[in-house]
């Protein structure tokens, strides 16, 4: 693979932002209003992009400090492609229906990390077998600008999942900040066209490319989990019957569902009736979680009343069933489920424990 790499400065990145901002709604990382985390929100100006902060991510712990490099917060591009709540149809008495009509929207995800662009690739599959209208309206015109992850955090394992820390696919433009420079790569025809308008970019020097490769190699070492995914789906599924094992592995889980909410690929939803007095009902689609008690409940009973079974469902879905359903795993190794688990359950450790028969 020959990748053309261009060298520029932060001012070129700002220029790129402005070009995209003129034509599209730009979503990117900014510091939340309370200053406590990175959030993906609309950015009107390059200055709004988060900077000079660093996040500490550990099992059950997230802190934002002054610093150099941050990863991501709890939200992901999923929030925009598959909103947490979405009105589907309005129903009036007598069952007259008014569907909500969603227009095309041009969005740019700016400065997302490789794990999040990989998550979009997975969602492309999960939302396409029955083409999801809202997803499609945004996805068709979506522009993806990825910042390579030069310093993965403690909960990251993208290198093991094969999704990072350097982006390989599913992006328009990628950039890496190294030694005061910004190195740009093109990932699509569209990205190539956009980058051409940054006329001050130069061909990257041999030194630039060498330090890019070296930096990414170092980053890769930080983003590894102690397992490999080659036979993982099969090896995990072989343990499906070991009830005691799943009980042990899930013993700390409280079933809050945080992991599924922060997961950039979890796609489960339900639809409920929101009544507006006696006038109409809005049917609203909202994120659901396989950890909730009611998830597998039917009128006559519950197929997964126990938490260990729901934990197993989540883990095996992500790492086994998903492959059979969508020809890819359901995990990108972003580590959000580890960071945002209130009990600090580490999926990497859970996988090792399942493979090893439950012991730590």
């Amino acid at each position, binding site marked *: 693979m020959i990748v053309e790499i261009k060298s520029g400065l932060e001012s070129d990145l700002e220029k790129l932002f402005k070009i995209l901002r003129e034509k599209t709604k730009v979503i990117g990382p900014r510091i939340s209003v309370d200053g406590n985390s990175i959030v993906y929100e609309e950015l009107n100006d390059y200055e709004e992009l988060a900077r000079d902060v660093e996040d500490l991510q550990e099992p059950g712990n997230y802190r934002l400090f002054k610093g150099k490099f941050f990863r991501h917060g709890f939200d992901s591009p999923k929030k925009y492609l598959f909103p947490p709540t979405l009105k589907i149809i309005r129903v009036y008495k007598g*069952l007259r*229906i008014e*569907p909500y009509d*969603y227009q095309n929207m041009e969005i740019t995800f700016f400065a997302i990390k490789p794990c999040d662009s990989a998550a979009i690739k997975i969602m492309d599959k999960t939302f396409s077998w029955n083409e999801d209208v809202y997803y499609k309206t945004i996805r068709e015109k979506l522009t993806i600008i990825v910042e390579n992850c030069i310093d993965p955090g403690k909960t990251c394992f993208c290198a093991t999942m094969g999704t990072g820390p350097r982006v390989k696919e599913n992006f328009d433009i990628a950039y890496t900040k190294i030694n005061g420079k910004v190195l740009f790569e093109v990932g699509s025809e569209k990205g190539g066209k956009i980058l051409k308008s940054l006329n001050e970019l130069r061909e990257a020097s041999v030194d630039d490319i060498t330090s890019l490769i070296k930096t990414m190699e170092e980053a890769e070492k930080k983003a590894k989990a102690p397992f490999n995914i080659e036979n993982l789906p099969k090896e995990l599924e072989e343990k*499906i019957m070991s009830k005691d094992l799943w009980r042990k592995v899930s013993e700390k889980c409280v079933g809050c569902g945080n992991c599924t909410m922060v997961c950039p690929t979890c796609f489960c939803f339900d639809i*409920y009736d929101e009544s507006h007095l006696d006038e109409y009902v809005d049917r609203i689609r909202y994120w659901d979680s396989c950890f909730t008690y009611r998830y*597998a409940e039917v*009128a006559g009973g519950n*197929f997964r009343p126990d938490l260990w*079974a729901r934990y197993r469902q989540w883990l095996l879905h992500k790492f086994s069933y998903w492959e059979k359903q969508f020809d890819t795993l359901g995990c990108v190794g972003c580590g959000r489920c580890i960071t945002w688990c209130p009990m600090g359950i580490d999926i990497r450790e859970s996988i090792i424990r399942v493979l090893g028969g439950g012991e730590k």
Partner: protein
Amino acid sequence: MIYKEYIFKKGLINKIIQETQDVYTYYVTPMEGEVKGSPGQFNILYVYGGGEIPISISGLEDGKIMHTIKIVGAVTRMISKIKENDIIGFRGPYGNTWPVKEAEGFDILIVSGGIGIAPLRPVIMEVERNRDRYGRMIILYGARTPRDLVYRREFERYKRIRNTEFHVTVDRGEEEWAGAVGVVTTLIPKVDVDPKNTIAMVCGPEIMMKFTVKDLIKKKIPEERIYISMERRMRCGIGQCGHCQVGPYFVCKDGPVFQFSKIKGYFEVEQI
């Protein structure tokens, strides 16, 4: 762009028949579009302000869709308040079908428990309509008590179908009950099946299906010719919402009817 998938059609409730104390059959005439569905498929019904539930199709006759519903949950309780000439929402049909095509030339063994007879009734009707296409038909049906027997008004009709055996049992008999007492699996050893030429279709509570399948295998019916219809929380009907998953399968889309040999590895897993 709009979500066409979730737009339900309106159906007029023509007739309601009370089958048992808590089971009702609703005959629905679509107010738009045609009557569609095959044996084994289901519709998702909608009640204003209550929400949706998946209900199997129990019959398609004279331009009407027949749904037999047990009043057990929040939405079915709202449905139970519906009167004749009221309107209900429905979308579908969803899911795959019983193997009625594959069963041509074979003997058919139907084993049903409780409300599980509802999705199998269209198979009985299919055999009645096209009697010469199939071999023998044996219908085994079990319910808790005589008062819980659904479609009792049609039993004589089932018995009159040529080359058909129909056996009923109840878990607990009552004074006037002269029939068999015992769970539905107790009927299996009593019937004579030709395992080489039989296709079995089973529907009922999961525990009943587990024991039934075991006994059918004992009768030497191969696992590929045993079909079960699974129940799960099916919310979207199109394999998108996730709720109905059993291992890698979405019951609403890959099922609800499964060849036992295909689902076996997951069916036997506790709390799958």
